[in-house]
């Protein structure tokens, strides 16, 4: 058995490569193929019928699909930016706190432990128009005497979903930015103060560049898993009512499993995959850039 001796790193990476190829890559190739067929679950042999780009051209002309697509991008953009902003704010707040930092940090991690399904469920409960906490509070405070249809009106439901999304993921940003703040050397801060920087200038030109890689790690981790939002949305509204909160992922699930139109669902899934990859690739780029910059500076 001396003939087949691979270098050690190949041996070490082999299990991961084989597994990912078998469980992720191969199915994805299959789904790429079936996105070129009119495959329906009810008619298994239709998987062999090649129709070229028909599914994709149909999608290109499908208004519902583009609305869902736009809504997904809007949701992700808003959520990621707001989470970053809130996370930064939270991290700065906790870092300033004079006492109880350990407790505060633990509380900060709290939302990370919640499964997205649970997040969806608890916000569905809180935004329920009849028994929810939000409406109860608003009514008891006398701000309104109506039951606000949080999850029924399209715009309000979007806000509710966004709130749930932000609640569940701001923690990731806060924790990483906080780690950055704590790892930060003090000397440059002192130097900036001695040189007469305003607090804003100090933050903008000293603190932020140092925090950037941490923020991008958080962004990257977050972007790896943007489709988590599917769980939240499925539970809260399931894309409804009447498609008013439909995003790409709920549309895929509906088309594939309720309508059993696998072919076109796979075409949609490919668009969703490319979207996720685009998000991640952007952040990986930024991460590498920020990393190089910090390495050069410190």
């Amino acid at each position, binding site marked *: 058995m001396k003939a087949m001796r691979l270098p050690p790193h190949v041996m070490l*990476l082999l299990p*991961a490569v084989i597994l*990912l190829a078998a469980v992720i890559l191969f199915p994805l190739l299959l789904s790429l193929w079936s996105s070129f067929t009119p495959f329906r679950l009810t008619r298994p042999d239709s998987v062999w019928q090649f129709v070229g780009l028909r599914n994709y051209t149909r999608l290109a002309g499908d208004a519902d699909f583009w609305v869902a697509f736009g809504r997904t991008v809007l949701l992700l953009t808003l959520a990621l930016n707001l989470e970053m902003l809130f996370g930064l704010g939270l991290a700065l707040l906790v870092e300033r706190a004079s006492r109880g930092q350990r407790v505060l940090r633990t509380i900060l991690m709290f939302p990370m432990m919640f*499964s997205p399904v*649970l997040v969806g469920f608890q916000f569905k*409960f809180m935004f329920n128009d009849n028994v929810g906490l939000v409406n109860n509070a608003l009514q008891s405070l006398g701000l309104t005497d109506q039951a606000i249809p949080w999850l029924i009106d399209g715009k309000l439901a979007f806000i509710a979903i966004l709130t749930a999304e932000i609640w569940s993921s701001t923690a990731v940003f806060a924790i990483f930015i906080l780690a950055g703040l704590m790892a930060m050397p003090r000397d440059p801060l002192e130097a900036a103060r001695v040189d007469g920087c305003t607090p804003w200038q100090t933050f903008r030109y000293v603190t932020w560049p140092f925090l950037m890689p941490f923020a991008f790690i958080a962004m*990257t981790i977050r972007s790896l898993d943007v489709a988590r939002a599917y769980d939240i949305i499925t539970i809260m509204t399931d894309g409804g009512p009447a498609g008013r909160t439909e995003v790409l992922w709920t549309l895929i699930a509906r088309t594939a499993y309720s309508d059993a139109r696998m072919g076109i669902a796979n075409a949609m899934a490919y668009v969703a995959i490319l979207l996720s*990859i685009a998000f991640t690739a952007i952040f990986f780029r930024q991460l590498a850039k920020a990393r190089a910059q910090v390495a050069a500076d410190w």
Partner: protein
Amino acid sequence: MDRNASARARKLTSRWALNLALFVAMAIICLPGFWIVLNSLRPTVEIMAKPPIWIPRELNFDAYVAMFSGVGQGGIPVLEYFRNSLIISVTSTIIALAIGMAGGYAFARYRFAYKSSWFLGFMLTRTVPGIALSLPLFFIYARLGIIDTHLGMILVYVALNVPFTIWLIDGFFRQVPRDLSEAAQIDGCTRWQAFWRVEFPLARPGIASAGIFAFLTSWNEFALASQLTRSTGSKTLPVGLLDYTAEFTIDWRGMCALAVVMIIPALLLTYAVQKHLVSGLTSGAIKG
């Protein structure tokens, strides 16, 4: 004197503003969890009451008792779901750790061509949305006959966890100085022995937290589980949660109770690893 006093007053106000802001932020973070725990203990009448009852009049554990007393008692098969979740999560975590340790070690200790591309490639497999992956898997699993089985779920969760486990473990091995293993090898250890006797013990806390992270991912996963499981034979807790919403009415109290059951293991585990998790993920960022 006057300036002193005003400066002190300003400092005091800013300290109070800071504390207030902190308090509000923490309250917002804690509120949803608190709301769930509270409502799992209240009778349904009180949850549904109009006008709302703010101060609970009666707290009891009825929901938990009902939940664990099995089907037919108004409960759902929580014990089965719990068992499925546990088997699937633990097994997939152990396998993912083994594969991830090998991969992470390779990234941390060896140089090879296109290393960063490989790394990015691994990460990109993680970006595939669960629901998109579930379509072909559903078909393949149905063909192989492993749909609605533990094996099927374990396979896909291992694949889901491996990229991230590699990232974390890579970070932890980087923190272990290379010299240590070299010193051990000079002293007569093989590389294999050096790994198990020197590098592994030093990286162990990190590896443990990578494991817990993988466990939580499997424990909480929903998109794939909701499509690839069908019966009490393999349904996991997140999917089981939906049992309460099957009809037009939602059993809020029961759902809250199940939510609490789901959260407790996650809570304990996350608390145990919080420190290592962050250091592992960021170590790569600073040292490059």
